């Protein structure tokens, strides 16, 4: 299905016919993928394992160039405006991008310094972040001693250090308990209310249904269906996103 994007007047992210074919793979990971996300939108990319979510995310965040196609962030292109874009986006990888031997506080300090924060600013920023991920009590212990949920929260908090315009979240809630997940949801909703654009991937369809203003269902590097969760449900005979998802992507295993 081809989705028209013309109605978005003030886009935060524009992707035009992005393709990416990894060497040695039979199929392209991303195949002429187009997407426009408005400022302040909370967009969810849903898809089975290997659908190409991470690849799309990394092309949008400027981590790897597409084989073909174009990306614009707030109207700017990578290359000419890379540094400026980078200073305005937050990227939270699917992996736990933390130094296990450093404490939570030292991790935050390191990335904040790289983002150019200093002096009083950095101190207050560290405190805010620790509060955000509720790690004040464990701030001076090595990350290696944290639970999975604590690490996920810290992973997220570090992505927010520069008050980004756009936040890229690659499966931010994988492997965390209900309490941590709840906290993360709460924080993300609060962020959206302050105007941050959020692009996020997940396997938890209920979560997407609850959080996202719009979702795109993806398979084999292409968008199959897109729209606000309520609209998608209204237009179909299904009860929830999961049923739509299975209908579109089938029951077969993907990463066998």
């Amino acid at each position: 299905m081809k989705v028209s994007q013309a109605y978005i007047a003030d886009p935060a992210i524009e992707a035009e016919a992005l393709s990416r074919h990894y060497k040695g793979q039979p199929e392209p990971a991303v195949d002429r993928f187009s997407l426009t996300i408005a400022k302040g939108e909370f967009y969810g990319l849903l898809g089975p394992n290997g659908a190409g979510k991470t690849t799309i995310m990394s092309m949008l965040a400027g981590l790897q160039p597409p084989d073909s196609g174009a990306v614009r962030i707030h109207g700017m292109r990578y290359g000419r405006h890379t540094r400026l874009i980078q200073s305005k986006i937050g990227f939270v990888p699917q992996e736990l991008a933390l130094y296990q031997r450093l404490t939570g506080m030292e991790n935050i300090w390191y990335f904040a310094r790289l983002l150019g924060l200093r002096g009083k600013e950095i101190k207050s920023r560290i405190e805010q972040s620790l509060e955000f991920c509720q790690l004040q009590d464990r701030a001076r212990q090595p990350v290696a001693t944290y639970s999975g949920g604590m690490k996920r929260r810290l992973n997220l908090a570090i992505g927010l250090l520069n008050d980004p315009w756009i936040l890229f979240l690659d499966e931010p809630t994988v492997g965390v308990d209900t309490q941590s997940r709840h906290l993360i949801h709460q924080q993300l909703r609060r962020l959206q209310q302050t105007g941050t654009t959020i692009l996020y991937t997940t396997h938890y369809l209920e979560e997407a249904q609850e959080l996202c203003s719009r979702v795109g269902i993806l398979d084999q590097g292409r968008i199959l269906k897109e729209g606000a969760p309520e609209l998608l449900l209204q237009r179909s005979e299904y009860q929830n996103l999961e049923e739509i998802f299975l209908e579109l992507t089938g029951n077969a295993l993907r990463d066998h």
Partner: protein
Amino acid sequence: MRALLTSAHKELRLLARDYAGLLVLFLMPVTLVVVITLVQENILQLSGQRPTEICVQDDDQGPFAHGLTAYLQTGKLEAVPWTGSADELRQAVTAGTCQAALILEQGASARLQQQIDRQLAGDATSKSPSLALDLLFDPATMVGFRAGIFARVQMAAQATELEMKATRLGARLTAQAGAGTPAGNGSGEDLRALFSRSLTTIAEQSGHSSQSSMDEILNPVDRNVPAWALFGMFFTAIPIAGTILTERQSGVALRLTAMPVSPISLLAGKMFAYLGVCVVQFILIALVGIYLFPHLGLQAFSLPINPLSLLLPVCASSLAACGFGVCLGSVCRSYEQASTLGATIVVAAAAMGGIMVPVYAMPPLMQQLSILSPLSWAITCFSDLLIRGNPWESTLPDLGRLVAFSAVMLIISWKRAYR
């Protein structure tokens, strides 16, 4: 600059938490230096390191010189004629271009012949002044090497002298027989003296300008301490590579790539931190050489008059080692790969660079290849300062090579490290 310092600070913090890593970084090279020096000192003293060439300045051009070079040749010691002046030869030896040199003064053959004649004439009991040959050695050569050359030169000189004596005696006997006079004063006693008393002596000298005795200057420890310290330094490449690989595997690399910082600053920060580590490593090894070695029955490591002159080569070598580590981490895909490849390269480069066996003792092909090894540039700097006593300026070309090498390594890593 901020990113560089932040990155360096973080690396040191990480390292400070890694007790096992620290132990390996500092204990490994120290152990290596102590063990190898203990083992190698004797080996280098006992085994001649198969010397193959000696530069010969032949100002004599007489029968003695011809005979001597011919005998050297049969002793498997190639006599390479030196065309420059004696002073230039001394310089070449000091600089290590020539490991051993022999100077045959003008008129040496004539003088020797005169003395032989005097001995034959019965003057043998008088204390005849001998002919002294100057044998020069590169101060960086080992005892075994010098002993080997010395013995062969001495043998060749004596053989030549004997040949000359025999020819002279033969000529004289023929002349006497022709004249009908009995062999007169040529008694058995005199003949014994003629053949047993050697007229040539060999004066062993250092090519060093101070002309002090070789045994005082040469100290295998002065070569082994920097050599094995360098070996240890280059092994830090593996932990450095490890830091990059962990960052890549943990996703930190992705986060860093998404940030407005250049990978060059981050990598340079790593190099800066580990440069400090390498310098501390070297100081530790030097201290062990100075204070511990005498208790182990080894000579103490002797610092140059101005110990600070070592700072430049230590820093340049460390930089090269760190650059190599960064490149290793950028090129390899896993820690196993980096440690296997890294160890192989370091051991090969060390062997080629003259860490294990001095370059001059290698076969000619390896001697030529050795100039490709950064460890050889590094060890040359140290030998120049510590053993040859050259001024620090003479190490500039090698220092330049080391710094250029690390810059090239950094550039290779630039686009690869965090991809």
